[in-house]
């Protein structure tokens, strides 16, 4: 730690004696207006005094306070210290110092400079990123020194890019050319932006810059295609989750449940309730999302069982009447939730492992929450298939579906199987709600947005076929996302709907049609 500090001091502040006054003066600027704050942050970054790091970080987190007499304090937990001296301060009524985006950008650049050689990997990576964005020729020696010590490949890569960008900002023509060549060898949109930005300032190098941009674009094209494909799969996974429960209740039982969307919504609200309930239990609070999965399943399944036993079982063999009945039930569930929880959206926070992006091979980046939902949807599909094909309950369920009377004759209690099947499908809808709470509004209207799409997926895939639901959902998602940039969001969806309608009339039983007697019912 000390060696790092010395290194910094040697590099940046040869006149240590004057630095003390300069540090004090720059620090005072942090309490001023936005323009003054930004300038002060930049100066602190240039001074290279490591004492600035906790202060700048405090400012960026809203923990830097200004007392009535103008003294700056750093809040650490419930304890305040003077920013300049580090001594404990017993001052009440200090107000947090406010910043804006301009200050925030300056702070990031300064912190980047100051923490390029930090022992913490994540900090170094963020620092390289920040220095890349602030791209000043002054950073070149700093980056070179940091690169010499760096041995983590990912951080090195970012630092090299930052170095290239800083070289491009240098006055010297040869350094500029080197920078252009290095940036051109990357596959980064940010590098592309940097190149284009400097194009106007360096007309002499325009041709080289254009060549570098073209090279980047070539690499990016493949990546964009991969990302679009992932986006399609992600949309498909959402459709899959929303439709799976329906594939059971509608596909297997033939019950049209218009309240399906409301079960999804109940699952999302269960997630919210779990989060609030576990807030007080520190050991369980971080696990509220995974714990919501079984909870949502149980809540939705219980509602489903009540609905089936209480109402739907009186209407078997009359699918269209069930449609109307469940539409009415859906209206009531929606209004009950609206009165119980309020019409406003409820906040369901994402755990840290579901935030941000993940970089896969070839620089393809995907968002974490979408990736998890994709994995989760396949998992739920797998469990559903397993439940239907590997368990006793699944066997009875299939038996009742195929021939109710023979199944009853064999001693299967068909009424109970119906209730369980419907509860099972509803429970899956509830699980879908847990996932949707991570990407959509948790509001009483949540479910109604998915109901039609879900029906389309099930019918398109082939009623009664879970494989069909999977293929249907994924292909619809991908086609939608591929069309979107050309047709716009709305028309892409309209095209997909029309295509499904035409497809259904060619193959009324969907992609994976059931054959034989079951299909005729």
């Amino acid at each position: 730690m000390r060696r790092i500090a010395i290194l910094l001091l040697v590099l940046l502040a040869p006149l240590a004696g004057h630095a003390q006054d300069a540090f004090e003066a720059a620090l005072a600027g942090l309490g001023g207006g936005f323009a003054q704050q930004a300038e002060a942050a930049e100066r602190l970054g240039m001074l290279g005094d490591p004492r600035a790091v906790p202060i700048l970080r405090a400012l960026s987190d809203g923990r830097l306070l200004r007392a009535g007499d103008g003294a700056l304090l750093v809040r650490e937990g419930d304890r305040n210290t003077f920013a300049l001296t580090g001594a404990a301060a017993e001052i009440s009524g200090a107000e947090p110092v406010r910043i804006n985006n301009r200050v925030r950008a300056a702070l990031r650049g300064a912190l980047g400079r100051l923490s390029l050689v930090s022992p913490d990997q994540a900090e170094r990576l963020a620092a390289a990123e920040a220095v890349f964005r602030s791209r000043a020729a002054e950073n070149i020696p700093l980056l070179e020194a940091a690169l010499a010590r760096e041995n983590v490949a990912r951080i090195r890569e970012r630092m090299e890019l930052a170095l290239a960008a800083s070289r491009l900002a240098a006055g010297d023509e040869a350094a500029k050319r080197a920078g252009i060549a290095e940036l051109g060898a990357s596959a980064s949109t940010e590098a592309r932006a940097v190149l284009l930005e400097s194009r106007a300032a360096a007309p002499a190098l325009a041709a080289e810059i254009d060549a570098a941009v073209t090279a980047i674009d070539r690499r990016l094209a493949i990546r964009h295609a991969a990302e679009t494909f992932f986006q399609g799969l992600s949309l498909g996974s959402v459709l899959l989750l929303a439709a799976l429960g329906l594939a059971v209740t509608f596909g297997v039982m033939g019950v049209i449940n218009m309240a399906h969307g409301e079960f999804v919504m109940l699952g999302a609200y269960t997630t919210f309730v779990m989060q609030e309930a576990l807030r007080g239990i520190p050991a369980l609070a971080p696990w509220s999302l995974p714990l919501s999965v079984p909870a949502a399943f149980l809540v939705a399944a219980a509602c489903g069982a009540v609905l089936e036993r209480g109402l739907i079982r009186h209407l078997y063999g009359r699918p269209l009447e069930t449609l109307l009945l469940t539409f009415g039930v859906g209206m009531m569930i929606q209004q009950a939730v609206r009165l119980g929880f309020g019409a406003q959206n409820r906040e369901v926070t994402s755990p840290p492992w579901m935030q941000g992006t993940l970089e896969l091979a070839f620089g393809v980046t995907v968002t974490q929450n979408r990736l998890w939902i994709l994995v989760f949807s396949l998992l739920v599909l797998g469990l559903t298939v397993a439940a239907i094909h590997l368990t006793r309950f699944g066997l009875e369920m299939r038996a009742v579906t195929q021939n109710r009377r023979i199944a009853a004759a064999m001693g299967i209690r068909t009424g109970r199987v119906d209730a369980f099947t419907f509860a099972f499908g509803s429970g899956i809808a509830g699980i879908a709600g847990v996932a949707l709470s991570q990407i959509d509004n948790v509001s009483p209207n949540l479910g109604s947005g998915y109901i039609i799409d879900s029906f389309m997926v099930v019918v398109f895939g082939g009623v009664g076929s879970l494989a069909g639901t999977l293929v249907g959902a994924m292909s619809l998602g991908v086609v939608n996302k591929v069309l979107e940039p050309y047709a716009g969001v709305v028309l892409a969806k309209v095209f997909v709907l029309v295509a499904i309608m035409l497809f259904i009339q060619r193959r009324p039983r969907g992609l994976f049609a059931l054959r034989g007697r079951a299909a005729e019912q």
Partner: protein
Amino acid sequence: MRAGLGAAVGLLALLPALNALPTDHALHVSDFIVSVTGKWICYAILALSLDLAWGYAGILSLGHGAFFALGGYAIGMHLMRLIGPRGAYGHPVLPDFMVFLGYTQLPWFWRGFEYFPYAALMVLLVPGALALVVGFLAFRSRITGVYLSILTQAMTYALMLAFFRNDMGFGGNNGFTDFKELLGMPLATPRARAALFYASLVALVAAFLICSVLTRTKYGRVLTAIRDAESRARFLGYDTARHKLFAFVLSAMLAGLAGALYVPQVGIINPGEFNPGNSIEAVIWVAVGGRGTLVGAVLGAFSVNALKTWLTSAAPDLWLFALGGLFVVVTLFLPRGLIGVFDRLRKGRAP
């Protein structure tokens, strides 16, 4: 029954006359009652058309709202053209929304709508043509039951999404409003309201007569046969697809007519009318009144909508429970709807 119907129509016909009485007269009926009843009459026509398709031909369309809305849009385009230079921007040809969206000329599909006969024709032709295409494709492939319902639902959903787009040239979400006049009558007057009211009533009676005659002909009986056992009817040599197609197209045209009468009365048409929920609600009117009886469809449309109008003011937080509960009760306990209840009551009283 017949006498009751006549009395009901006569009573309805009296409303605008009572409205014309001085406001302090004991029998005076407010504008609100007249305009809201006019709306219900249009809903009743929609319910009739749906009953023809569902109650008699077994086609449960969850997209009848689309035909209703298309009829409404056709007349709406005419009404927009009639505004002429009286719009906010004073453009001689273009409606206001086109002016501020930067259109320089009228899109081709708007041509001709300045003539009432053309618009009136389109009110019937556009929904009819859509029904013809969708019905032809669906019935040819023998799509029935639930699948057909979902197909028609997708149809209205796709249309809703499309009409919400501002680039379509139909005013997007705001749709058409601020109508001035129809056939030379300024719309915001009691006279125009009375005229539209009577037009709707006449249309309702006419639609009722057409349907009731149609369902009693041989064609109507074949239709019922198809509803009850389509394969059997086919094996007997009937071209079931063609029979169903005719009923479906006629039904769509009636729905379009209902929409065209509805729009000038409520003063707005927007893509919300394509909302699949609206179509399902229309199905529920028929179910509540009594599917497969024309009187039932009309009765259902009136009673559910009257209830909705009353409850959205009397119990704004709870009306959805009442309405949702009604749907549940009717489907569970009154499979033949309100008509079934009346029949049972009458039979119970008979010696």
